[in-house]
C-alpha cells in the first residue's frame, strides 16, 4: 500500500478491482464504510463475480478475468478525452511533459525493439530525449507530439467504450457509471483510492495491470494524498516483511537487485554502478572516488544515490570483520545468480521436475496445494533427495509422499501411479510454534511493523522458527568450522551471534542487526540517511534502519510502540508501531501540497500532509515528509516528488528497463483465452515466457474460463484454516461457483458434485449454483466463467480437491507470478 488501512476512511471514492476486500481483508471494509457514512464516499467493485464486497458496494461492475487493461485503458482515454485529469499535478509531478526518443514506437501490439525468437524487448528506445547533462527534455504545454502525454493519448485512442465492453463483457451502462464516478476524483479537492490484490497480479499482464492503475491515479492526482494511492492488499500477514527481507531470488534486502554473473556485477564497484541510477556514465573506479561523486550529487539518481551505503552496511552486518574495504567488503561472498536464468517459483519447480534440485526447505508454505499446476509440482518433489518442512501441521506438502497424496477422486492421467515405497525423498518435519507462542515483528500491508508478544507456550516440543534457524545456522557453522576452502568462507565468516547468554536465541540481537548499529559506538543508527559505505555502520536491511533507537540509554525496538493517538485525525497514529521507510505512513506525501511546497490543493486543506516551512528551513507535517528534509522545493536537484525514481517524476511512461513488456500497458489475452485479442493481433503478452506450450488448453475443448480465489473463512492453502474446527465448520468442503445459466446448460444441480477438467488435471467439488455469476458477452459471443476456492487439500478437518491441479505454469512477463486467475476448463456433472 502507498497509503494505509486507516487512511481508507479519508477517501471520496474507492475503486476495488482485483480484490475481494470484504472477504479477504475484512477490516478494510470498516474504514471504507466509515468513508461512506462520514464523507459520502462511493464504493465501486469491479470483479468477475458478485462477492461479499460487491454486496456492500455502491456500484458493482462485472468484467471477464484477464481484461483489466482494457477496462483501465478505456478509463485513461475517458479521463483524457473529457479533460478530467488533475492538470497541475500531471504537469509538475509526472513525466507527462517529458519527450520520448523518436525511435520509440508501438504498432499492432508490439513496442519497438521486439525480439520474436527470445520473446524479449530491447528497451533502449523506450527512453527520454535528454539534454547534455542527461536531463529529460520537456514540454510543459503537453502539446509536443513526442511528449509522454501525447503518446499516452495516442496509445489509448483505440480503447473506446464499445470496444472495451466487448472485450471485458462489462455492461456499457455499468462501465460508464464506474468511469463517471471514479474519474470525478480528478478534481483537486477530491481523492480516490484503488485497492487491488491477486485478482490484478496473477495474470500474464499482472505488472502492467498495476501500471495501468498508476497511470490512472497520476492523471487524477491521487498519489501521495490521504484517501488516495494504489493500495495493494497483500495476502499474508508478513508477506511484506518476507519481501522486504528479500526471500525472492531477484533481490537482496531492501529491494536492491541481487547480484548476478553479468559482467556489470563483477566487482562491488561495478555492482554499485549497476544499482545506482545516473551513475552509468560517470568516471569512477573505486569506492573512494564514488563517495566524492555522491557527496557532490549527480543528476537522475534520486534517493538511490545512497545505494552503496546500504549494500556495504548489509555486508558488514553479514560478514563482520571479514568484510573490509580492501576485500570489497566481502562482496564476492554473495551468491551470483546466472543472469540468464529465472529462479522464480515456476522455474524452481520446473527445475525440480527435471531432477536438478536435490534439497528443498519449505518454511510455512504448502506448494502441493498452493503452487500452480500442483500435480506437476507434487511430482517434482518426488525427485528430491531431501525435504525439510517447517510448519505447525503436517500439511499436504509435508505429507506429499503418503498414499493419500496420490489418490484422486477423478481419474487423472496427469497424475502418475506413485506410492511411498518408490519415493526416495528423506523428509524432515520440524514442528513450529504458532504466532502467539513466540515473539517477533510483522510488516502489514501498509508497511506498518508491529510487535507480537508471546501469549502462550508452544505446544509440545514445537519451536519458534527463529530458534530453528538459529540452531541450524550454528550447526552449519560448526560443520564448516576450520575449513580453509575459499568457497566455504561465506559460511565460516557469516556473523551468527544471537545468543542470549543462556544458549538460546535473542530476538533483540537479530533486530539490532536488522535495524542497524554503529561499529564505532555500538548505538543504533537512527535512519538510513546515516548509514555509511566505509565500514563504520552495519545494517541488515536499510529500509528497517531507524526501527530502533536509544530510549533512556537502552536499546528500544520501535515496532513495540503502542501509543494510540492520532493528532491529525487522518488515521496516521504516528506512535503506533513503526512503518518503513522512516515511519512514513503515506508515501509520496509531498504530492499532498502544490509544487510550491506550501499551498494545499484548492479546497483540500484538511488533507495536506506536509509542507515546506521556510522559517525552520525544513519540511514539516503530520506525516514524515517524503522528501529530503532540508531540501527546499525550489532546489533543482529535488523538485520532483517521487524521490525513489531517478528523475523524481511519477511515471505515466515507464522508461527503459522499468518494465520488460512495454512502457505503456497494452491489452493482451490470458494465455488460455476463449477469444482472440480485439485490441491488436498478439493474443498473448509478447514478453511472457512460455514454460509448457503443450499444456495450453484451447477453447474448442475447454470453453469455460476458470479462476481461483479465497473466502473470508479460508486462507491461502488452508493449512492455517482447515486445521481449525471453527473455520472448517464455516466452509467445510471444496466448492465451485457457477451461474444458473451454465448449470442449466450442463444439467448441474446446486449442492451436487461436479467435475472440472483442464489439460493439467481434473477435480471433483460441490457445485454452488448462484445468481452472483453471470455469463459474459465477449466479442458478440456468450462466455461462461466459473470460480473456485484454492484452499483445499487432503489434510485437516475440512478436506477437498486442490484447485491448483488445474492452474497453468505460466506467469507475468516481469515477475513470473503465475496466471492463476484466468485459464480454460470444462465442467460436467460428476
Amino acid at each position, binding site marked *: 500500500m502507498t497509503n494505509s488501512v*486507516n487512511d481508507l476512511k479519508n477517501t471520496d471514492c474507492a475503486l476495488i478491482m482485483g480484490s475481494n476486500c470484504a472477504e479477504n481483508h*475484512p*477490516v478494510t471494509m*470498516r474504514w471504507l464504510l466509515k468513508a461512506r457514512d462520514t464523507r459520502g464516499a462511493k464504493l465501486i467493485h469491479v470483479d468477475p463475480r458478485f462477492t461479499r464486497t460487491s454486496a456492500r458496494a455502491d456500484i458493482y461492475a462485472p468484467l471477464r478475468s484477464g481484461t483489466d487493461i482494457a477496462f483501465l485503458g478505456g478509463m485513461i482515454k475517458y479521463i483524457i478525452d473529457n479533460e478530467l485529469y488533475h492538470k497541475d499535478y500531471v504537469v509538475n509531478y509526472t513525466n507527462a511533459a517529458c519527450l520520448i526518443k523518436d525511435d520509440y514506437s508501438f504498432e499492432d501490439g508490439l513496442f519497438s525493439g521486439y525480439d520474436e525468437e527470445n520473446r524479449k524487448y530491447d528497451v533502449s528506445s523506450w527512453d527520454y530525449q535528454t539534454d547534455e547533462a542527461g536531463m529529460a527534455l520537456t514540454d510543459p504545454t503537453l502539446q509536443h507530439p513526442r511528449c509522454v502525454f501525447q503518446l499516452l493519448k495516442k496509445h489509448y485512442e483505440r480503447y473506446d467504450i464499445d470496444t472495451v465492453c466487448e472485450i471485458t463483457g462489462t455492461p456499457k451502462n455499468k462501465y460508464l457509471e464506474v468511469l463517471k464516478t471514479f474519474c470525478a476524483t480528478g478534481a483537486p479537492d477530491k481523492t480516490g483510492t484503488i485497492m487491488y490484490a491477486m485478482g490484478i497480479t496473477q495474470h500474464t499482464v499482472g505488472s502492467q495491470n498495476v501500471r495501468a492503475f498508476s497511470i490512472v491515479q497520476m492523471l487524477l492526482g491521487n498519489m501521495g494524498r490521504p484517501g488516495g494511492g494504489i493500495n495493494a492488499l497483500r*495476502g499474508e*500477514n*508478513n*508477506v511484506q*516483511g518476507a519481501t522486504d*527481507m*528479500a*526471500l525472492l*531470488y531477484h533481490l537482496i*534486502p531492501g529491494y536492491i537487485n541481487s547480484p548476478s554473473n553479468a559482467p556489470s556485477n*563483477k566487482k562491488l564497484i561495478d555492482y554499485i554502478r549497476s544499482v545506482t541510477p545516473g551513475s552509468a556514465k560517470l568516471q569512477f573506479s573505486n569506492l573512494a572516488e564514488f563517495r566524492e561523486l555522491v557527496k557532490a550529487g549527480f543528476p537522475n539518481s534520486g534517493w538511490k544515490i545512497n545505494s552503496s551505503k546500504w549494500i556495504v552496511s548489509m555486508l558488514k552486518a553479514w560478514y563482520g570483520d571479514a568484510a573490509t574495504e580492501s576485500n570489497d567488503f566481502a562482496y564476492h561472498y554473495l*551468491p*551470483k545468480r546466472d543472469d540468464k536464468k529465472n529462479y522464480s517459483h515456476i522455474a524452481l519447480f520446473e527445475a525440480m521436475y527435471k531432477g536438478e534440485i*536435490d534439497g*528443498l*526447505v*519449505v*518454511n510455512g*508454505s504448502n506448494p502441493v496445494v498452493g503452487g500452480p499446476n500442483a500435480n506437476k509440482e507434487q511430482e517434482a518433489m518426488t525427485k528430491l533427495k531431501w525435504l525439510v518442512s517447517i510448519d505447525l501441521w503436517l500439511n499436504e506438502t509435508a505429507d506429499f509422499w503418503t498414499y493419500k497424496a496420490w489418490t484422486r477422486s477423478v481419474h487423472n492421467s496427469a497424475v502418475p501411479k506413485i506410492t*511411498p*515405497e518408490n*519415493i526416495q525423498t*528423506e523428509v524432515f*518435519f*520440524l*514442528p513450529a510454534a504458532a*504466532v502467539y*507462542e513466540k515473539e517477533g*515483528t*510483522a510488516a502489514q500491508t501498509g508497511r506498518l*511493523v508491529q*510487535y*507480537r*508478544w508471546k501469549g502462550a507456550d508452544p*505446544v*509440545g*516440543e514445537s*519451536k519458534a*522458527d527463529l530458534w530453528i534457524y538459529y540452531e541450524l545456522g550454528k*550447526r*552449519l557453522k*560448526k560443520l564448516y568450522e576450520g575449513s580453509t576452502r575459499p*568457497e566455504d568462507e*561465506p559460511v565460516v565468516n*557469516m556473523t551468527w551471534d544471537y545468543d542470549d547468554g543462556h544458549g538460546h536465541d535473542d530476538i533483540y540481537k*537479530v533486530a539490532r542487526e536488522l535495524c542497524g548499529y554503529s561499529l564505532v559506538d555500538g548505538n543504533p543508527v537512527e535512519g538510513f540517511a546515516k548509514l555509511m559505505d566505509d565500514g563504520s555502520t552495519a545494517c541488515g*536491511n536499510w529500509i528497517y534502519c531507524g526501527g530502533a533507537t536509544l530510549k533512556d540509554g537502552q536499546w528500544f525496538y520501535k515496532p513495540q510502540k*503502542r501509543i494510540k493517538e492520532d493528532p491529525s485525525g487522518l488515521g496516521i497514529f504516528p506512535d*503506533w508501531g513503526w512503518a518503513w521507510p522512516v515511519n512514513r505512513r503515506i508515501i509520496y506525501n509531498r504530492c499532498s501540497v502544490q509544487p510550491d511546497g506550501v499551498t494545499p490543493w484548492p479546497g483540500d486543506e484538511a488533507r495536506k500532509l506536509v509542507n515546506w516551512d521556510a522559517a525552520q528551513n525544513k519540511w514539516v507535517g503530520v506525516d514524515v515528509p517524503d522528501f529530503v528534509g532540508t531540501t527546499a522545493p525550489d532546489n533543482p536537484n529535488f523538485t520532483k516528488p517521487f524521490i525513489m525514481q531517478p528523475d523524481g517524476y511519477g511515471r505515466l511512461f515507464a522508461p527503459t528497463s522499468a518494465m520488460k513488456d512495454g512502457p505503456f500497458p497494452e491489452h493482451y489475452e490470458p494465455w488460455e483465452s476463449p477469444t482472440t485479442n480485439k485490441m491488436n493481433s498478439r493474443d498473448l503478452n509478447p514478453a511472457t515466457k512460455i514454460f509448457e506450450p503443450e499444456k495450453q488448453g484451447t477453447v474448442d475443448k475447454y470453453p469455460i474460463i476458470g479462476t481461483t480465489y479465497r473466502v473470508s*473463512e479460508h*486462507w491461502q492453502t488452508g493449512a492455517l*484454516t482447515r486445521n*481449525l*474446527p471453527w*473455520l472448517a465448520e464455516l466452509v467445510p468442503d471444496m466448492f465451485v461457483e457457477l451461474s444458473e445459466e451454465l448449470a442449466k446448460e450442463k444439467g448441474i444441480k446446486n449442492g451436487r458434485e461436479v467435475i472440472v477438467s483442464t489439460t493439467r488435471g481434473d477435480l471433483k467439488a460441490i457445485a454452488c449454483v448462484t445468481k452472483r455469476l453471470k455469463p459474459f458477452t465477449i466479442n458478440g459471443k456468450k462466455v461462461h466463467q466459473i470460480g473456485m476456492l484454492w484452499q483445499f487439500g487432503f489434510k485437516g478437518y475440512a478436506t477437498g480437491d486442490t484447485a491448483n491441479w488445474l492452474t497453468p505454469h505460466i506467469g507475468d512477463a516481469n515477475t513470473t*507470478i503465475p496466471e492463476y486467475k484466468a485459464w480454460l476448463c470444462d465442467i460436467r456433472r460428476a
Partner: protein
Amino acid sequence: MRVTRRQFLKLSGATAAVFSAAELGFNFEATASAVKQLRIKNVTPTPTICPYCASGCGLVVYAERDSEGKFVKLLSVHGDPDNPINMGGACSKGSAMFNLREIYDPETGEQMINPKRVQKPLYRAPGSTKWEEKDWDWMLDRIAEKIKETRDSSFIHKEKIDDGSEIIVNRTEKIASVGGSGLDNEECYLLSKMMRSLGVVYLETQARI
C-alpha cells in the same frame, strides 16, 4: 445513560485487565446463577498480530497461568481494542485464533490441544510409509549434514562469464528454499542471510505466488 462502545473498549483494553461494572454506572445484582464467572477477569492479556491477511489487526491472548506464572491453557483470543487498525474487531479467521492451539472436543466439550498440531519432530526415511518421532538434536544435525553434503557436491565457486573472465559466483543450484511469508521479520531476515551465505539462489516466498 449510554454505554458507548468506547467505554467498553477502554475497559477491555490490553492495558486495562481489571473490569468493574461500577465504572460504567451499572448496578447489577447477580441476576442468575446462569451468569458464569468472567474467566478473563484479572487476567492480563498479551497483544499479538493476526497471522492471516496482511491488514495487521491486533489480537489479545488471554491465558490461564499457575501461581508461578507458568502457562496452563488459553482462555480466549480476540481483537485488540487498542490497535488502531481494527479497534478490537476480528473477522472469522482472527476470531478463530484460539483454535490454532486449542479446541473444544465436539464429543465431550472438553478443552484440549488441537490434535492436528505436531508436537515432536518427525522423520520419514526414504521409501518409508510412516513418520517416526525423533529428537531435535538428531534432526537438526542430520539436516545440517544434508545441506552441507548437497552444497559441497554442487557448489559453483567460480565460473567463466560473458566477457570471457572468470569470477567468483559462490552459488548452489541444488538447494531451494520456499516460503517465509508466515514468519516474523527477524526470522525472514535470518533465513535470507543464512540461505544466501550458503549460496542458495532458488530462494522464493509466497510473494511470488
